[in-house]
C-alpha cells in the first residue's frame, strides 16, 4: 500500500493550474509510511487510547485508585439527571460559551474595522490590543480577581468618575459572577478575534471598495454588501474557536471564582476537576467529560454545517 503511485490531491472546486502529467510517476517517489509512525504512536498513547479508556470508565464506579471497580452501566449518566450541580454546570457552560462567542466576536470585529482604517496609530494599536491574548490566562484571571473585588480597582474607578452607584461585588454576587467571568474572558481574547478578522479584512480587494464607493454606496452599505461576504471564512474560524474555547473554559473560572459563590459559576470543566480530585468520583467525573465531548461534537458539527452553507451562499 505504501508503494501507491504518487498523486497529489486536487481541489475539486478549482481547475488544476497545469495539465496533469500523463506519465505515471515512479513508485519510489512516495515517502514511506513509517514517517507517520512517531506522531501516530504519540497521538495514540496520549489522546486516542486514553479517550477510549475514558469512555469505558464512564460506565464504572472507579474512584481513581482502587483496582477493584465494577461496571455500573448507565448509572453515572442517570445520576447526573438527579444532580442539581451537574445540571447547573451544563447550563452555565452553554450560557458562558454563547455569551463569550457573541460578545468577543462583536468586539473583535469592531476593533478589526478600527485598526484596518486610515488612523495613524493603527500599527501600534494592533500590537497593543492583541497583547492580552498571549498572557497566561490563569495570571490574567488572578489579576482580575483583585480588580473586581469589593475594594478593587474597577469599583474605585467608578467611584472616582462619579459613578459610585455602579459599584458591585462583581465576583461575590451569584447573579453577576458568571457575567464577570465572561467579561474577563472577552477582555483576554477580543484581540485574538480582532487579528483573525483583520487577516480576513486585508484579503478584501481595495478596488471593489472604491468601485462601490463611486457607485454611491455609503460605509454601512459597503460593509454589508462588500466586506461582510468576504469576511465569511474569518467569521467561521472565529466562531468555532470562541464557542469551543468557551465550552472548555477552565482556567478563568478556577482562578476567578473557583466555581462559586456556591455553585453559581461552576462549569462542566470545573465540576470534572472537583469530582475527580476532591471527591474521588473518577467514574462519575469522566462521565461528565463524555457529556462535554458530546456537547462539543454536536455544537461543532452543527456550526460547521450552518457556516459552510453560509460561506457558500456568501461567495
Amino acid at each position, binding site marked *: 500500500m505504501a508503494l501507491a503511485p504518487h498523486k497529489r490531491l486536487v481541489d475539486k472546486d478549482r481547475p488544476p493550474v497545469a495539465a496533469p502529467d500523463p506519465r505515471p510517476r515512479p513508485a519510489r517517489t512516495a515517502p514511506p*509510511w513509517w514517517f507517520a509512525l512517531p506522531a*501516530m504512536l504519540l497521538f495514540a498513547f496520549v489522546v486516542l487510547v*486514553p479517550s477510549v479508556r475514558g469512555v469505558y470508565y464512564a460506565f464504572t464506579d472507579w474512584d481513581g485508585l482502587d483496582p477493584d471497580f465494577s461496571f455500573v452501566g448507565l448509572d453515572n449518566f442517570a445520576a447526573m439527571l438527579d444532580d442539581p450541580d451537574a445540571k447547573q454546570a451544563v447550563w452555565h457552560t452553554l450560557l458562558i460559551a454563547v455569551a463569550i462567542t457573541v460578545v468577543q466576536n462583536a468586539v473583535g470585529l469592531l476593533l478589526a474595522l478600527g485598526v484596518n482604517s486610515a488612523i495613524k496609530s493603527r500599527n501600534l494599536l494592533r500590537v497593543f490590543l492583541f497583547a492580552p491574548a498571549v498572557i497566561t490566562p490563569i495570571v490574567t484571571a488572578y489579576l482580575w480577581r483583585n480588580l473586581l473585588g469589593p475594594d478593587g480597582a474597577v469599583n474605585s474607578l467608578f467611584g472616582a468618575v462619579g459613578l459610585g452607584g455602579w459599584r458591585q461585588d462583581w465576583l461575590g454576587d451569584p447573579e453577576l459572577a458568571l457575567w464577570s467571568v465572561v467579561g474577563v474572558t472577552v477582555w483576554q481574547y477580543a484581540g485574538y478575534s480582532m487579528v483573525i478578522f483583520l487577516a480576513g479584512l486585508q484579503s478584501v480587494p481595495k478596488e471593489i471598495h472604491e468601485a462601490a464607493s463611486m457607485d454611491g454606496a455609503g460605509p454601512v452599505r459597503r460593509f454589508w454588501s462588500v466586506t461582510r461576504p468576504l469576511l465569511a471564512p474569518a467569521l467561521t474560524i472565529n466562531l468555532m474557536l470562541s464557542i469551543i474555547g468557551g465550552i472548555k473554559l477552565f482556567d478563568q473560572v478556577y482562578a476567578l471564582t473557583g466555581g462559586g459563590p456556591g455553585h453559581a459559576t461552576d462549569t462542566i470543566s470545573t465540576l470534572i476537576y472537583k469530582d475527580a480530585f476532591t471527591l474521588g468520583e473518577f467514574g462519575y467525573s469522566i462521565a461528565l467529560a463524555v457529556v462535554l465531548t458530546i456537547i462539543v461534537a454536536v455544537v461543532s458539527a452543527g456550526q460547521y454545517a450552518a457556516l459552510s452553507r453560509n460561506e457558500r451562499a456568501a461567495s
Partner: protein
Amino acid sequence: MKRYGRRTLALELAMIAAALFVGFPVYVLVNLAVRPTSDTSSPISPTTSPTLDNFTQAWQQGALGGALANSLLVTVCSVVVVLAVSSLAAYPLARITARWSRGTYLTILLGLALPFQLASLPLYQTMRDLGLLGTPWALVLFYAGLQVPFTVFLYVGFLRALPGDFEDAALIDGCTPLQSFRYVVLPMLKPITVTALVLNTVAVWNDFFTPLLYLSGSAQQTLPVAIAGFVGQYVTDWNLIFAALVISILPVLLVYFLLQRSIINGFAGGLKG
C-alpha cells in the same frame, strides 16, 4: 487614499480610548506591585514611593526561578518533539492518496474535537503507573501527543498546496526519502513551522489544567501552577501577589513585543489555513 478628516480623527480617539480600557488592568497591576504593603490608598491612585521589595520577596518565597526553568524545559522539549514528528508525518500523509493515509489523517483530525479532560484523566493513571507523575517528563510526553493533531493539520494543509516537483526531482537524483525530507521538504515548510512554533509555544507555556493534575504536590512546578500556589499562600497580600504576576508576565510580554509581527501573523495565518 482618503484625506485624514474629522471622522478619522474621531475614530482614532475612540480606538485609543479602547486601548486605554484594555491597558487599565496592566496599569493597576504594575501600580500595586511597586507599592509597599503599608500604603493602603485606592488601587488606582499612583503610588507615591515605589519600591522593588515586593519583587525580591516574591521571587524568593515563590521559588519562581525554579518554576521558570521548569516551564522553559517543558515548553522547549515538547514543542521541538511535536514539530519534528508532525512535519515528518505530514510528508506521507499529504503526498500519499491511499486509503490508509486518508484514514490516518482523519483519525488524527478527530483528536481536534476531543476535549482534553476526557484523555487526561485516564492518562493520569498511566503516568502514575509509569512513575512519571510529578516529573516534567510526564508533561513533555503529554503535550507532544496532545499537540500532534493541530500541528499535523497545519503541516498537511500547507504541504498539499505546494507542488511535489522538487521532492520528485531529489528522489530521482538519488536522495533517500529521509534526505529528501531533510533537504527539500523541511526548508519549504519554514513559514508554517514558524506559525506552528508560535501557536504551540503559547499553548504549552500557558497551560494550567494539566500541570495542576500531573505535578500536584511535587516540588517541580511550572510557572502557572507556582503562581496559583503562591496566590493560595499569600491570599491577602496582593502587593506581593501582583509582584509575582508581573514577574511571570514579563518574559511573555518581552518575547511578544520582540516578535510581535510573526506572532500576530502566525495567529492570523495559522488559523486561517
